[in-house]
């Protein structure tokens, strides 16, 4: 697969431009020209010429298919496709892959979410019993849906699952052909952002979810310098994203055509995605947890995780710092700064909020959602408001959230945003005197 005629080494990288938590191994890396840079460096050492090609895929399985066919050497995908990739490629010596790094993760699984049409009566997952749900079969979103259903006391047989590509699912949802859409990044929030639906379940199942990078063993053995260059490029892309989140989001949006507001929701500070390359125990555990599901689905028979995970290249890159980084579970990218409206520093990631004024290249921070609303109430146009869900902490769109007014809460916390109506209702039930309101009411009330 790694044929190198006349000193030309093909480097075929597969990525998923739409699946934006892989940007550090895909779109962003490509836009910043980082892999080219590191390959040039490598070329000076090895004297080889590298012929780099990028291959964009809509989802993981076709990427894996190309890797099986030996046409792609390094690729990034979500956790379930990644497991399938490991299992399927292991059947052939020449294309067997290893899991070499992670792009980003979410410890609670909230990268996958379930949305319903605005007109839907459903407030909880249980309401979906007997209804049609669109998802990508075998994807992380599918697994997440099954766990969530399980948590809600339903089995997959209680609903009708339709395996559809994400955009098809979105269209189907918009034209009322399905009752719910269980999808991965960035489709659920895209629907929410465009006003085509609302969040029913924010994906919090307690099972971590992530996107990772796999590389062909045969290829990396022959060209270890390519993998090193790739990982170095990925790290630089990640650091760029951490330091210039808004710029990175704009760049990705520009390259992919996705709305920048949605990209920034996920990839911004305190976003749903934590960008960290290390292969954390929790993530390996998540893969292990998912295996029975995939086996039952018939997607794979077995996966030798010990063999599949290969942290050596990362260790080489990070050196001594690797284990420390691996152990850390905090998001290196946080919202910081001073809240002018409430007059306090922004510290608590659980409440830190952000507003993106129209026409600006920077965001304005707020210590709490309530402070954010105060800021907005002062006037001005905003592209988007980012607030953490009061129950799960998942970053959501403020203007599409369900709000609860709880006069009994602290001064800067009287207005609480929730991603789902159910969570808001639950809070209101628990806290006497509080009231579920919509965004406009909340805004008017500050």
């Amino acid at each position, binding site marked *: 697969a790694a044929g190198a005629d006349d000193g030309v080494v093909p480097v075929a990288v597969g990525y998923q431009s739409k699946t934006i938590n892989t940007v550090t191994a895909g779109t962003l890396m490509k836009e910043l020209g980082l892999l080219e840079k590191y390959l040039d460096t490598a070329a000076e050492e090895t004297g080889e010429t590298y012929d780099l090609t990028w291959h964009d895929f809509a989802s993981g399985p076709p990427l894996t*298919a190309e890797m099986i066919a030996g046409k792609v050497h390094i690729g990034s995908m979500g956790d379930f496709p990644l497991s399938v990739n490991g299992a399927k490629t292991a059947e052939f010596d020449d294309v067997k892959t290893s899991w070499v790094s992670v792009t980003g993760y979410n410890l609670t699984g909230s990268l996958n979410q379930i949305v319903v049409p605005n007109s839907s009566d459903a407030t909880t997952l249980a309401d979906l019993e007997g209804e049609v749900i669109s998802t990508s*079969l075998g994807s992380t979103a599918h697994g997440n849906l099954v766990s969530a259903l399980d948590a809600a006391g339903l089995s997959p047989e209680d609903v009708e699952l339709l395996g559809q590509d994400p955009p098809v699912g979105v269209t189907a949802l918009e034209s009322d052909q399905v009752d719910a859409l269980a999808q991965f990044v960035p489709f659920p929030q895209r629907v929410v952002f465009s006003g085509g639906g609302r969040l029913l379940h924010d994906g919090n199942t307690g099972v971590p979810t992530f996107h990772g990078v796999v590389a062909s063993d045969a290829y990396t053995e022959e060209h270890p310098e390519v993998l090193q260059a790739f990982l170095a490029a990925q790290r630089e892309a990640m650091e760029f994203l951490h330091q210039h989140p808004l710029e990175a989001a704009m760049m990705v949006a520009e390259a992919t055509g996705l709305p920048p507001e949605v990209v920034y929701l996920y990839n911004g500070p305190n976003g749903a995605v934590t960008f960290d390359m290390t292969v954390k125990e929790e993530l390996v555990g998540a893969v292990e947890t998912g295996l029975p599901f995939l086996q039952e689905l*018939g997607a794979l028979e077995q996966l030798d995780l010990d063999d599949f995970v290969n942290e050596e290249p990362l260790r080489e890159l990070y050196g001594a710092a690797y284990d420390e980084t691996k152990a850390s579970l905090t998001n290196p990218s946080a919202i910081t700064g001073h809240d002018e409206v409430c007059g306090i520093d922004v510290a608590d990631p659980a409440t830190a909020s952000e507003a993106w004024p129209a026409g600006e290249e920077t965001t304005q921070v707020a210590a709490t959602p309530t402070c954010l609303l105060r800021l907005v109430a002062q006037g001005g146009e905003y592209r988007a408001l980012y607030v953490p869900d009061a129950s799960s902490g998942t970053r959501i769109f403020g203007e599409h959230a369900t709000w609860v007014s709880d006069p009994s809460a602290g001064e800067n916390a009287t207005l609480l945003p929730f991603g789902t109506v159910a969570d808001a209702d639950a809070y209101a039930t628990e806290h006497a005197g509080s009231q579920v309101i919509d965004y406009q009411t909340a805004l008017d009330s500050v």
Partner: protein
Amino acid sequence: MTTTKERPTADLLPAPEATEAPTTASPRRSPRRAARRLLPAVPILAALAAWQLLTQYDVVAWLRFDKMPGPAEVGTSIRLQLEAPVFYQHVLSSLRRILTGFAIAGVTGVLTGIAIGRSKTTAALVRPLIEVARPVPAIALVPIAILLFPTGEQGIVFITAFAAFFPITVATIHAMKTLPPVWTDAARTLGANRWQVLVHVVFPGAMPSIFSGLSVSMGVAWICVISAEMISGQFGVGYWTWMSYSLLDYAGVVTGMLTIGLLGFTTSWAIERIGRRVNRWLPGEGW
């Protein structure tokens, strides 16, 4: 090629043996004919054998057979599916869609083709629309169909009919062009009006072409039903196959393809059969 002498007697009817004279001047034909019965099996078997060998030895000679599933693997997969009732439901869904879509396309296609072929005004009015719509690949309509139609089922049937419509229309227009004018001339001097010429001359005279169009169209209809099922994720063989692919179950993919092939074969065969019946007045095939 030894069929030279057969043209005048061979016709499309199913029993060409009946034309054999009792005291035949060329007795060598009979064993040949027996051999010919078996011939159809030869290529299929050869293809199977080639497949087996190519996959077994993981041949990579420009084409790469190393990752392809072999016949044995696929056999297991087929056996498994034949025992699963849900598989039959998939098959039934697809069949229902194809028959509906095909029927719609058949009727509208023939009518449109005749209208265009017979009237310059209609041709001027309708042809541009058709020519613009025709090359739009049905698969590109999936998003639009999902948006337009109340149910996914209708969307798929629409896409199928849309795609199947054009080959039939084109074949019918073609028939209109090649119809010997003396047939219509004769009918008209016998007092047939436009409508009667259509029903009694144009329509039967166009049948050979129309059936050629139907035959192609059935192929296209299958392509579209399957594609649409794959993409829009509605129950059916296409969906089943695509799901196998999503799970990277290549043996399943091949099973799906074979199933589709078999279904397609059956429908094509039916059309061919009916076509032969309808067009048995044709001079014949081969010489």
